[in-house]
């Protein structure tokens, strides 16, 4: 019943010349999304992926279990010295992420271009 979460990884470079790893998600982010969210993140070598950008542009539904997966990703990233940013959330989910405090640990941006410009 839940839409399968798809994810893939792109490597881009910010205007300032920093390598940025973009995790692009598509579908629902819920309890069934562990492999697509945490699994894909955990497969990245920590030493060479210091800037992580989460792309939620094609995500329609995120529930509290999905938010918990994002928080688990933030915990692992923090412990590995990585910085995490996100973009493409709807206004509603920007509000929800702000309410639960995620914005304290991950900068949110409206678009990839605005996110990369800030890195």
């Amino acid at each position: 019943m839940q839409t399968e979460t798809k994810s893939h990884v792109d490597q881009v470079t910010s205007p300032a010349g920093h390598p940025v790893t973009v995790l692009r998600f598509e579908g629902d982010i819920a309890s069934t999304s562990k492999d697509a969210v945490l699994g894909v993140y955990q497969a990245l070598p920590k030493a060479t992926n210091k800037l992580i950008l989460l792309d939620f542009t094609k995500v329609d539904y995120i529930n509290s279990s999905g938010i918990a997966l994002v928080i688990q990703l933030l915990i692992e990233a923090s412990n590995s010295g990585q910085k995490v940013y996100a973009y493409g959330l709807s206004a509603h989910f920007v509000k929800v992420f702000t309410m639960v405090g995620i914005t304290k640990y991950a900068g949110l941006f409206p678009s990839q271009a605005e996110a990369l410009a800030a890195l």
Partner: protein
Amino acid sequence: MSAMKTTNVEVRLPSRMGFEKVAMSTAASVAKLMGFRDDRIEDLKTAVAEACINAIEHGNRLNEKLSVGVVLSAGEDSLEVKVIDDGTGMKKQPAKPDIDRKMHGEEDARGMGMFLIQALVDEAEWVAGSDGKSSYVRLVIRLDKDA
């Protein structure tokens, strides 16, 4: 004083994760018919989804022989949603989630559903059935709250 007219819509969901989206879509449709703003409808969708997830996962313990009842009552200026399960209800309200504690591993990364429900609707109450089952959560959102 004339009696306020209320229109009811009822949905029954299997206790299977993912079916909360059926209740979410139904609630959104009713709220749209009532004239709620899009941002309030988004708040309602998340609150209803989280209430159904709690009912499926904790109330009915994912037992697909049990169903979750969702009753939407559209009044003149508010929409009430009751999400009913066969559980015993909550013994106590969980603490407000603390992102710093979560980040430091002092608190489970999960456990935000009830907080979101309370934060996104105008009223939320959890009622345990007197017979030890048929507990429900009751949510209310009001029209034109911020207009």
